[in-house]
């Protein structure tokens, strides 16, 4: 049964669990970052606040935890499009404190989404900007979260396109392939909600180590839907399937895609849409897979939380729905 863990303050705009689900970060409209921890012993059912401070001017619209291999840190995206990286550090004999170690800013466009991924050699952060650009930053020293370098910059298009004007992107969604380490090249998925149809459809980008660049290897959209504005994407963890599962939400509904693992002759990975689900009336806000990649949780404009699963025949359906309390 569902259990209430915490009541958040008025003005809270976003929350984010860390990878193990033991810490919750919350951001609010006045720029306050709060960190909540599970009490010891772990069987306790409540969280308590271990840090609360105003970390930036303007409100926080998104918080992303860094992979735990690199310490306890979060990236905060503010409404004016600045990403700031905050790390929990112990200095001298003082108690644990959160300090800003890096700020990514661009005067001409806002960061709409940012996500961390681990590649063979380093930690990377992908950021999607309001001008339609995708920028990949790389941590040069794994022991020092301050040192980031711009590793790549490109636009979310496959074909060669020349369009003049200022792309106007309302939102974006990024999801890394959760596969950690191994021999596979790192890859991620990004899509936009913008006025430029070429940017919108979610595309899978894979890093070409030999040429040190990112290549588009798949597009998760039917030909007639390539311009549909995207709400959210989520890449499912893979525990042994011969294909990847990816969820893509647009105004047409929630699509479940299978992504093949072996490229075709043109270097593209085969894609197949295996389900189109409806449920949320209006925009899908957020999607999360469970650890096995078998259950997808979604929330949206209707305020509901919905769980989706496929049965043994591979047919996807809604397994449960939760009404917001009070």
């Amino acid at each position, binding site marked *: 049964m569902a259990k209430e863990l915490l009541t958040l303050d008025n*003005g809270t705009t976003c929350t984010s669990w860390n990878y193990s689900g033991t810490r919750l970060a919350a951001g609010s409209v006045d720029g306050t970052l709060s960190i909540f921890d599970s009490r010891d012993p772990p069987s306790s059912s409540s969280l308590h606040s271990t840090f609360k401070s105003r970390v930036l001017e*303007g409100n926080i619209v998104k918080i992303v935890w860094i992979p735990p291999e690199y310490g306890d840190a979060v990236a905060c995206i503010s409404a004016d499009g600045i990403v700031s990286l905050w790390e929990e550090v112990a200095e001298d004999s003082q108690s644990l404190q959160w300090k800003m170690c890096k700020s990514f800013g661009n005067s001409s466009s806002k960061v709409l989404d940012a996500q961390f991924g681990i590649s063979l050699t380093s930690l990377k952060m992908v950021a999607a900007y309001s001008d339609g650009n995708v920028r990949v930053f790389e941590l040069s020293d794994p022991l020092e979260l301050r040192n980031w370098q711009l590793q790549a910059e490109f*636009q979310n298009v496959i074909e060669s396109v020349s369009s*003049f*004007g200022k792309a106007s992107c309302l939102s974006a969604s990024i999801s890394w392939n959760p596969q950690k380490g191994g021999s596979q090249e790192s890859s991620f998925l990004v899509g936009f909600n913008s006025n*430029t149809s070429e940017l919108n459809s979610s595309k899978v980008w894979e890093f070409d180590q030999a040429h040190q660049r990112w290549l588009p290897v798949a597009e998760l959209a039917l030909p007639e839907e390539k311009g549909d504005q995207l709400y959210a994407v989520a890449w499912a963890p893979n525990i042994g399937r011969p294909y990847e599962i990816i969820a893509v939400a647009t105004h047409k509904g929630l699509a479940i895609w299978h992504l093949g693992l072996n490229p075709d002759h043109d270097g593209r990975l085969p894609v197949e849409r295996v389900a189109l689900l409806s449920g949320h009336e209006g925009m899908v806000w957020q999607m999360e897979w469970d650890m096995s990649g078998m259950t997808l949780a979604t929330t949206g404009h209707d305020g509901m939380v919905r769980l989706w699963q496929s049965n043994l025949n591979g047919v996807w359906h809604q397994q449960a729905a939760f009404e917001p309390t009070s």
Partner: protein
Amino acid sequence: MTSPPISFVLAIALLVLLFSKPSLTVFVSIDCGSSESSIDKNNIRWIGDDDYIQHGESHQVYLGSNPLSTLRVFTNRKKNCYSIRVGKGEKILTRASFYYGNYDDKFSPPVFDLQFDGNYWATVNTSSYYYYVDYEAIYVTKGNFTSICVAQTRPNQFPFISSLEVRSLDPKMYSHVDSNHALILKWRYASGGNQTIRYPDDVFDRIWTPADGIGLSEVKSEASGIDISTAEDHPPEAALENSIVSSSTRQYMQFINRLPTKELPIYITAYFSEVMKSAVGKRSIQMYIDNKPFLSPIVPPFGSVKEVYITNMTASAETSFVLQASETSTLPPIINAVEVYTLSDTLTAGTDSRDVEGLLQLQLAFEVLVEWSGDPCLPYPYNWDWIQCTTDVKPRVIALYLSGYELRGTLPDFSSMNALETIDFHNNTMEGPILDFLGLLPNLKTLNLSYNRFNGTIPASLQNKNIELDTTNNCLSGMKCQPLSDFLIPPPPPPQPFSGDEQNIPSPPSELHAGDEPLGAGSLKINDLNIPFIVAMQTLLPLLFIKFL
């Protein structure tokens, strides 16, 4: 130390005088909701809106930056207007900005309408509580004032405004459209560069947003200066110093189109200036609209600018605009700047000037009415709250509903409002005689003057007329007049009506004196009228002057 020689002082004074001479007629920047003035980093002087509007509520917007850090919200009236003095028949650029910033802690930005001079301008939808939006229009004024209004269109969604700017333009600018239409800005871009260009680089304070594009490169011009005298819309030189270029002659350049899905008449200006001296004579650009060639090829001049107009046509989100190297060109297409406007519907001529005149008289006579401004009737249905209008193209005012507005004083002459059918003045403290002209209004059906302090007699023009007349509880001859302090006591039994046959008995002088106001109060009233007089003049003169066109 000796003082500087007088010729030096005179030279300095002359220099200051020359440079301080304003080059533009109107350059007003209003920081709505603020009562202070400031100068921003572009050297634009912002003033508070206390002198323009006396109602609404001002709010601080958390962590907005000037002039978006304050706003004024209006919780009543169908519309609320700012009236700004301009030259009659002047071409002006008007910009209104809105930043919700969750000022009311409801996380729910309102949706409402923006209007100018009785015309619909836009539906303001800030859609997210941490982005600002602005709207810009270019039009020719019809009077000495322009009024910009925000109108409530949905219940409990209160209109607000963050800033308002009015700028004069050269009358020859944007001249490929007649003055009966406004240009509504969709977008205005300067290619390349990364800074927004506005005043003082653009003396008309147009805002040129930097834009690059997908698959395009930015090129800076080699020209040491660019002669803009060949372009009639005076683009700022800064907007032409960079351009965007496609990767090859085979690569076309398509505009990202943000027009509405509905087909609308458009007005586009595109600016081309060659960036490389060596390219003169080698570059030629053909424009295609919906895959059809438009005009002959464009050859960008080096060191100056060629302006291209796209007018007298309609377009929508489905229309494609493409620049491609023409067949004879050995270099790929470039573009330096572009402006895209849609044309408004035909601008209204406003409410009939006879009604505007009459309403002005009412506002001059009754102070509380000067709070209403903008066109009295338009756009339909956003009339002033106490009038009723016809739905004609040029509306008439057919009713005055001023019951309970605490009007005090004598009736003005609003006899020019000859379409009036209903006048309801009951439940005020108006005094003085009932004027003859009321009975001469040709369409009047109902006249309710009850519960006031009118004295004298009912004029002959109102007798034996088919007008529903109510004059109960006044100070007319034969009536027992209530003392002013006891006005709200329930009225006593009606006085004995006298017949026409009886001789009229004059009222005792002491009763007449009781109804008079002390002279001191009269003097104060005259002083108080000065401020509303100024506001009323601001409010209605633009419409009054229509009659002379």
